[in-house]
């Protein structure tokens, strides 16, 4: 039994009366003897942005990789719309309606922008790739994102700047988004204006009723955009609260002092890692 799961596992921070679209039920992941995730119960709701935070090695990225089908859980299960699902690979997760921006951006440097955009979701015409249509759609979607200056869609991604690459990766997930959007550190290479743009996408996705999950280091940024915070610590979910307009400090204090003691977490162990992240900025 996980002491950290809270009084109502997986349901904290739920919008009133809403049913979760995606649920993790006791999800654990082991790599050899290393426990990366330990019994995670977590639910995501349509029209809600969840900020997933935690120190390096807290298990956030592992969780993202499992939820997006790249890894398979060692234990536990997922449910989509209340029905249990098993993702054998990323294609299954995408099929179910989950689009993910991974930390490494998931771009193939030696391929063109267009081909990267449609990788794993290629548009066909008969037996062949419909490159004209793919180019047209990429063009339109990039324009929508405000990357209209990347006109040469045939150029390799390796020629793009860090910010442009990140924008391509996010643009791809936004373009295909269906039910849930997961972003792992989506703004790490972006300027303030570009970051605001990413937040705008997240808000628009929320408006369209998508469940949005955003892994972030920067507490100030998460506070700006998230409706709800989930904190991971050593592979466990230790906090799951709604964003009620707290200041950063209030938030950090609330999370650390209030919630953790309430949950009976040993605060001295947190001082070394989690506090540093939570109180940063």
């Amino acid at each position, binding site marked *: 039994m996980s002491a950290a799961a809270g009084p109502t596992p997986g349901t904290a921070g739920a919008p009133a009366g809403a049913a979760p679209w995606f649920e993790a039920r006791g999800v654990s992941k082991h790599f050899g003897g290393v426990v990366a995730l330990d019994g995670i119960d977590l639910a995501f709701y349509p029209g809600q942005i969840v900020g997933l935070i935690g120190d390096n090695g807290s298990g956030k990225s592992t969780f993202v990789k499992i939820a997006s089908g*790249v890894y398979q859980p060692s234990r536990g299960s997922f449910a989509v719309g209340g029905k249990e699902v098993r993702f054998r*690979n990323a294609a299954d997760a995408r099929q179910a309606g989950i689009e993910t921006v991974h930390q490494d951006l998931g*771009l193939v440097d*030696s391929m063109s*922008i267009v081909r990267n955009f449609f*990788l794993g979701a290629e548009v066909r015409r008969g037996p062949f790739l419909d490159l004209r249509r793919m180019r047209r759609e990429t063009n339109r979607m990039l324009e929508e994102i405000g990357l209209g200056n990347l006109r040469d869609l045939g150029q390799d991604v390796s020629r793009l700047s860090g910010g442009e690459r990140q924008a391509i990766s996010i643009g791809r997930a936004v373009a295909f988004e269906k039910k849930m959007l997961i972003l792992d550190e989506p703004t790490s290479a972006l300027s303030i204006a570009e970051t605001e743009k990413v937040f705008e996408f997240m808000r628009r996705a929320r408006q369209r009723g998508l469940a949005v999950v955003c892994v972030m280091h920067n507490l100030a940024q998460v506070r700006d955009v998230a409706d709800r915070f989930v904190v991971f610590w050593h592979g466990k979910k230790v906090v799951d609260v709604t964003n009620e307009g707290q200041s950063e400090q209030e938030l950090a204090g609330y999370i650390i002092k209030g919630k953790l003691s309430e949950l009976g977490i040993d605060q001295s162990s947190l001082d070394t890692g989690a506090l540093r992240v939570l109180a940063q900025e």
Partner: protein
Amino acid sequence: MTAAQAGTNQQVLAGAGPAGPPGQGGPAGAAARTSRLGSSSLAFRILRQRETGIVLVGLLMFVVFSVLSNGTFDSVENWGGITSTAAELGIVTIGVALLMICGEFDLSVGANFSFAALVMATMIQDHYPPGAALVVALAIGAGIGLLNGLVTVTLDIPSFITTLGAFFLWTGVTLIVTGGETVTILPPTPALLNVLGGMLGSQIRSELLWWLGLAVVVGVVLQRTVTGNWFFAVGGKRLAAVEAGVPVTRTRVLAFVICGLFAAFAGAVQLGHLDSMSASFGTTYQLEAIAASVVGGCALMGGRGSMLGAVVGTLILAMLDSGLILSGVSPYWYEAVVGVILVAAVAMHTRVGQLVSGAGA
């Protein structure tokens, strides 16, 4: 991806937001559409092709050898010879280049080539239907490729090692089975062998058509199909392909199977050409095919390459072989020159790649 999935994606795309009329960027968009490097003019598009440099090198070689050989090199007779020698290596190279694009090596193609063709020759000698013998040869080639692929992905070891092991294994098996004997098919030669490697008219052999035809087909598959797209993605960055939902394991194994299939088919074509087969034929093909692929622009670590490059790379090796002799240079120089060209070509591809990357969507 199934057609149904494609339909879903299109619906999603159509519903993804307020779409303007497609392809209309307005005046500002049209201005911005001009790329950094000038324009999307034909000249630019040709220049940024990775293969442009090596095609020019090939043409230069042609001119130099023609001059040095006093007109014997560029004779029709000589090109009949060059192209039929090149065709067998060229067919092997098609598969090897495809596999390299996918990020893997096959050092067993030479052994595969002779083993498959020897089994086919023996079957024909023993009066099995030639068609059945060909099917068995191709099955052997595909099977050797499948084994290479399965061992590589399940044991998670580098294909360089897997296929080096396979090279020794199948070379040994071939020698055990044949005792090192040459198998010769006595006349009347079955029609199938003529279709594979016989003369077409007075100068060219049918194997030239097989080579070029297959290169075109595989080129179209690579550039214009989902599977081809996946070969590039898996070789370019495997993790990104995994994250995008590409069936990476299946794609890798498929590339091994195709490579093995082409090696065996090349063996069948050589049998059609010579009407005889020996375990000593094709023993250097793995290295020559990798050299030809790399000269033609295949990246050693995968993700880049083309059938045009594979064909031109093979032709350059074949031109060297013939050109040196006809220019009065000792044929012993062949290997030495291949080595220099190989390194120079990679240096060129790297420099050109830094200047312009991209081969059109």
